[in-house]
């Protein structure tokens, strides 16, 4: 049996002006934080987090470059290929969790936010975006707990970057754990401030990927592989990293500024 399943898209939901959710049935599991390799026929194969884990899976994709733009033109009934789930899982480690999401990073965290809340934890979400329209999964996070919002342009909530909002929340409240996903500079700030306050933190990293299964080295981060050792790393791991926040690998494997 092939590892790739070709599935028709059942439903496509616009989440923000640049972000869509694609729903499909596939014969695969999936836990909070895991991702699929998604084949957009004739364009590319890309890693995408599972934003819905139930019987009808979902991925939530920002129209970013060529392939994701092509995907934005897909309609229900069109087919994509999926394989996975890959990567490790957000682990619940305390009774109160602060989830800090930036932009489409919320797509990787929303399943964890819901799962942690179902497991009885108190989950507070700090969701950031360029502007109010680009906020992702605020309702779902709200159903799972308290939500605080930051926008770069101040069009909703806190005016500024989400790490600053997170810092305020950490200052005034007690959290046993932080999880984060978003642009790497943002996560770098979040990991830094969580560590400074002694709160355990898990961050889901993004790197260019080819195989997704730990053989090609495309996703190398120091001596680790984001696809199999991650995509979620702990604050301790990241504190030791030379690459995190500073370098990534381009498609040729060159180490370039992140």
């Amino acid at each position: 049996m092939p590892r790739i399943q070709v599935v028709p898209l059942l439903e496509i939901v616009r989440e923000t002006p640049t972000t869509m959710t694609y729903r499909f049935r596939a014969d695969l599991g999936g836990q909070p934080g895991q991702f699929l390799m998604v084949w957009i026929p004739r364009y590319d194969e890309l890693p995408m987090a599972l934003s819905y884990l139930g019987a009808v899976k979902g991925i939530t994709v920002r129209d970013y470059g060529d392939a994701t733009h092509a995907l934005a033109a897909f309609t229900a009934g069109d087919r994509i290929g999926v394989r996975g789930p890959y990567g490790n899982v957000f682990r619940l480690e305390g009774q109160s969790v602060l989830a800090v999401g930036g932009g489409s990073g919320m797509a990787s965290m929303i399943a964890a936010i819901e799962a942690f809340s179902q497991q009885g934890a108190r989950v507070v979400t700090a969701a950031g975006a360029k502007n109010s329209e680009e906020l992702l999964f605020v309702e779902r996070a709200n159903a799972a707990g308290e939500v605080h919002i930051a926008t770069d342009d101040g069009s909703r909530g806190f005016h500024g970057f989400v790490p600053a909002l997170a810092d305020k929340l950490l200052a005034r409240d007690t959290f046993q754990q932080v999880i984060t996903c978003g642009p790497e500079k943002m996560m770098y700030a979040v990991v830094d401030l969580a560590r400074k306050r002694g709160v355990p933190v898990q961050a889901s990293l993004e790197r260019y990927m080819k195989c997704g299964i730990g053989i090609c080295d495309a996703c190398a981060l120091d001596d680790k592989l984001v696809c199999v050792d991650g995509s979620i790393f702990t604050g301790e791991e990241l504190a030791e990293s030379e690459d995190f926040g500073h370098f990534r690998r381009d498609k040729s494997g060159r180490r370039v500024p992140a």
Partner: protein
Amino acid sequence: MVDLRTEIAGVALRNPTMLASGFLDETGGSMGRVYQAGAGAVVTKSVGPQPREGYPNPTIVELDAGLLNAVGLPNPGVIEYEHEVKRAHAAGAVVIGSVFGKDAEEYAAVAAKMSTYGVKAIELNLSCPHAKGLGTEIAQDASAVRDFTRTVKDVVDVPVFPKLSPNVQDIATFAIAAEEGGADGIVAINTLKAMAITPELKMPSLANKYGGLSGPAIRSIGVRAVYDICDKVHIPVIGVGGIGSGRDALEYIMAGACAVQIGTAILSRGLGVFNEISKEMAFLLEEAGFHSVPEAIGVAHA
């Protein structure tokens, strides 16, 4: 206890398992980790003169009995790659540098540069089945194999191991040509020309359409290649293709290989595969009454 040390053209290995080119060897961090996980040596990703992005995704497809890939020789270029070799060396690794180019001169230039990084040997990738103009055709012309090997030999001091393609009528002819060109050893085999189609999408599964097949599917093809080559040349042979257990490795050793390379099996067994295969080999060798790896080399020819 069986002594697992072996030696190829003067390169001493703590055990006969090497990391095959193209697996977790684009970066020094990963190479160091693989070595520390138990590999006897690591072969670098095939590196060319310039940075190269490779093909678009999908580049790797898992099949029933192996892996189909058309990564298209992505690599950071030999200049940048110095950092990676350094990092691997810093982690203690024994590194063999794999190189490619568009002609003999480019091979030689890259090999010469690579050899200044302290690699223990140069592997010539003469056999990538899916990158046009880069090795493919070279490995299918025996006189080119001889000339390329000679040109590289002239500019480096470390041993040179041409890696041969199985996509030919008679691989032993190419091994003979490599030996004539001054090769210090032969690596066999690279992947087989192959293609998968995804019927549900009515199209090839790889963006590049064509790819190379590796893994269990090709083991018996590789064993035969090594057996044939060892009948015809006097230089050492390194066996590669579908090795996933100590028993598999011994098939190659008994066919005549001095050492083996492991790639696709990392997928099923993880990085522990090098250590585990070494242990399995030791166990089977002991059971068969051998005290060292060299004793078992080529015994299936008797």
